[in-house]
């Protein structure tokens, strides 16, 4: 770890002002950033501790759900309205990390956690995401956990968040703020960038900009939503493949269909090809099978991760079956 200056503001506006300085990062629960600092993957000159700024409200009403960025993962997962109206969010959170990490981890921090790619997290390897232009040994290397969708010749690192997958299925919107700018809203489906030739740039956040809240609209589909996470270990592990499904079914017909997947993409992966195949259709088992067989169109496996293509389809099918049962 390198020496850094620690700022501990008590007002959001102060935090934003300090956060606008060069080589500065915000720190929330610290469950990911502390590891990256210790391993010299992140070496900021200054950290802005958000612990003192509040920003931890959870508000659910007829207009929807608003999660402030510093709300703890465990508090959101336990919130009765979240569990009733947006169950996929609670399920994704409860499938994340461990109880201890969820007690520290925040909603904003969770969405900005870095990839688990072992090549990224060890400065002994080259990595285009960590050191642009140094190369990606992961593509031809140990790639079992890495992405089959959204990768480029420069990076195939998987996005690690479960929550982001659930929010992607629900068309959540992120509220972003930066000192001197008016707050802006960005749909989560437009928030994460594909790696392309610049894998070091992961989101549309501008320098000094912060996620201040997540806004999730209410819907019949959200009330009937479900998260499935597949992994080697029964708990405390990142997804091999996960699926988030929200379904509004009336008279057996799919009205509103949302399907997203995790563990397979360089960002949370919406599956419009599956949604389109079910919209307005009778949701019988044949239709679900046919639709889920389209999941992951355009996948580019790297070798060890080829099984994720099959597993993705089966995970989507199982989640659709569960949500439509």
């Amino acid at each position: 770890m390198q020496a850094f200056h620690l700022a501990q503001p008590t007002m959001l506006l102060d935090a934003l002002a300090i956060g606008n300085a060069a080589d500065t990062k915000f720190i929330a629960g610290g469950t990911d950033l502390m590891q990256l600092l210790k391993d010299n993957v992140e070496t900021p000159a200054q950290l802005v501790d958000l612990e003192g700024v509040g920003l931890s409200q959870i508000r659910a009403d007829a207009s929807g759900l608003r999660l402030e960025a510093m709300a703890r993962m465990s508090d959101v997962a336990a919130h009765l309205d979240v569990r009733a109206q947006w169950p996929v969010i609670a399920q994704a959170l409860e499938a994340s990390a461990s109880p201890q990490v969820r007690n520290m981890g925040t909603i904003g921090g969770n969405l900005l956690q870095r990839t688990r790619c072992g090549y990224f997290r060890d400065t002994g390897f080259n990595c285009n995401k960590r050191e642009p232009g140094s190369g990606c040994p992961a593509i031809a290397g140990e790639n079992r956990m890495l992405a089959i969708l959204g990768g480029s010749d420069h990076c195939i690192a998987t996005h690690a968040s479960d929550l982001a997958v659930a929010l992607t299925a629900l068309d959540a919107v992120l509220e972003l703020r930066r000192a001197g700018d008016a707050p802006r809203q960005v749909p989560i489906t437009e928030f994460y960038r594909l790696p392309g030739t610049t894998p070091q740039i992961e989101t549309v956040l501008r320098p000094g900009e912060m996620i201040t809240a997540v806004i999730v609209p209410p819907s019949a589909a959200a009330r009937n939503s479900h998260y499935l996470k597949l992994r080697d270990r029964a708990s405390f592990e990142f997804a091999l493949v996960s699926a988030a499904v929200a379904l509004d079914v009336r008279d057996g017909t799919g009205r509103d269909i949302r399907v997203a997947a995790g563990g397979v993409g360089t960002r949370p992966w919406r599956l419009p090809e599956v949604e389109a195949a079910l919209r307005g259709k009778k949701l019988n088992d044949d239709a679900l099978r046919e639709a889920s067989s389209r999941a992951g169109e355009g996948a580019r496996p790297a070798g060890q991760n080829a099984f994720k293509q099959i597993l993705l389809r089966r995970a989507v099918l199982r989640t659709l079956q569960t949500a439509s049962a």
Partner: protein
Amino acid sequence: MASIGQGVDRVDGRLKVTGRARYAAEFPISDLVHAVLVQSTIGAGTIAAVDMGAAQAMPGVLAIITPDNAPKLAMKGGAQQAVRAPLLQDNAVHFNGQHVAVVVAQTLVQANAAASQVRIRYRRDEPVTSMDAALAQAYPPKNFRNGERPPDSRRGDPDTAFDGAAAKVDVTYITPIEHHNPMEPHATIARWDGDRLTVWTATQGISGAQQSLAGLFGIAPQDVHIVCPFVGGGFGCKGNTWPPATLAAMAAKVVGRPVKLAVTRAQMFTSNGYRPRTVQKLRFAADDQGRLVSMRHDGFSQMSQPVLGEFSEPVGLATEMLYACPNVAVSHRLVATNASLPTYMRAPGLASGNFALESAIDELAVALKMDPLEFRLRNYAEQEPHQNKPFASKALRACYQQGAEAFGWSRRSAEPRSMRDGSVLIGWGMATSTYPTHRMPASAYVRLGADNSALVRVGTQDLGTGTYTVMSQIAANTLGVPVERIRFELGDSAFPHAPVSGGSMTVASVGPAVKAACEAARAKLQRDGGEVAEASVDVKPGEEEHRYAMHAFGAQFVEVRVDAELGEIRVSRFVGAFDAGRVMNAKTARSQLIGGIVYGLGMALLEETHVDGETGRIVNANIAEYLVPVNADVPDIQTIIVPNDELVSNPLGAKGIGELPMVGVAAAVANAVYNATGVRVRKVPIRIEDVLV
């Protein structure tokens, strides 16, 4: 008063749960400074230059030790497994993650910051990173089992017998690199007082540490004082005196102050050995009556560069002795790679070897359409078939029977995919466990008071296994006093000698010394009277190991649930029945048994070190991505101790319980996965993608 066997609470339990048990890194030594290791980022080559300009100028930095300026060591050796590098004695880089520099600073934070600024330029060579691609260059070990026996053995004519047999399997099994990952990483505090060295270190063998450090620094063993009252788990990786302990002492010498060197979790992956990858070729055959007629087990295990030492994974040892088969051949070969030196890991040889052996036995039972337990009973060895000696005792038949009964084995459906619960396939599997009973010479000191209190000292270790408690029980039992009257001390090289705590032999070796010393002190007190009597005794094994084959045994039964479409594998039920001889403490024994079974479940389904093929660098050198079981992976585990009061193996009748329970677990799981899915997986860990059909 007869406390042996009872579930006596750990005598050090209160110290541990209140945080007062002091581990190596926790000793408050005045004037202490901190050392941090710098490790190589190439897999093979030489160090061309070390640029330490920036690092040297950083706050608090006292020294940066590199091969250019490191003190020369006497290198007289003396450890049980010679580890000859890396000790900064030359510029060669043999593997990725090799120690290439040590930074010493006033604080740990300063040392860490400076260590990350040391820049090393290399001349790179092409590393050999894949053992599987280099099998053709395999070579026989020079020092197999420390030279006690040749690496190969043969009885009868297995090849001819194979050719004419009714049922055959000819298969290759693979086990991966696994790392011990004890809860406590390696840590050492070293202090020089003139030419005398005191070392507080996490070790499974204080005597070995004393010998090795004395040899390396060219001083007499009595001038090296090792202190190690508690160890936070070892599993074999603290058996040798690995380079970090030596480098801590070297750093203390260079800066003239006491130095603490605590290895990080990531550095643990190249600092203190690992279970090597193995490729095992098995050719087994049986006649139409289900009698084994031929067993061939050819094992290859991954090695480092031979210049660094030697370790050979003895995968074929159980194949020689477990079944009554007239024609058996085993061989052991090494494959040199640019990896660090492998070492003993919980049940060395047996854990890897029995996965292959007991899976292949299951395959042969399937080929014969015979129940796998019945097949094993039909080939039961009443007498040790390799050395033609009687067993000191063998209650394996009772283990099979009691384990099967408790598990409900007779209700098993042999047909794969025939047991189901909705979308989940259910599979039952079983395997045999065995581990040799070892014993080494040991000594003990006792000071017995007329008030029936006793101080007992042995230079042994407690890895968290319960040595303090069990030895207190043995002393109490011998003296006929309550356990509370015994003060047992260990972990100090000034105490009487004891062997390394490995090979499940601490109770069998140290226990008889404690017993004999207590008897001698009591006799002296009774004879001479007075307030106190002292006794020091040395004990050693007798003729029994030449006359008898001595092994512990067990039978492992497991139920797995495999999602038919999604492939997720979860263990839902486990029964292990063991003949471990006499049990010293029902509680610590149960902890050892369930701990070993969980270790085996990790081997079966989770544990694997991933090595980058290009650079030989480990990709998952952390415990987020190197998976070990968590509570959610562990089902209810039923353990059964099969009574066995035999006292031939050693005076306490303890056959060893630390390693036995993990042997056979991986095979039992693999056999259960086959029963559930019809897929025979010949490698561990067994993954979702292996059973996606």
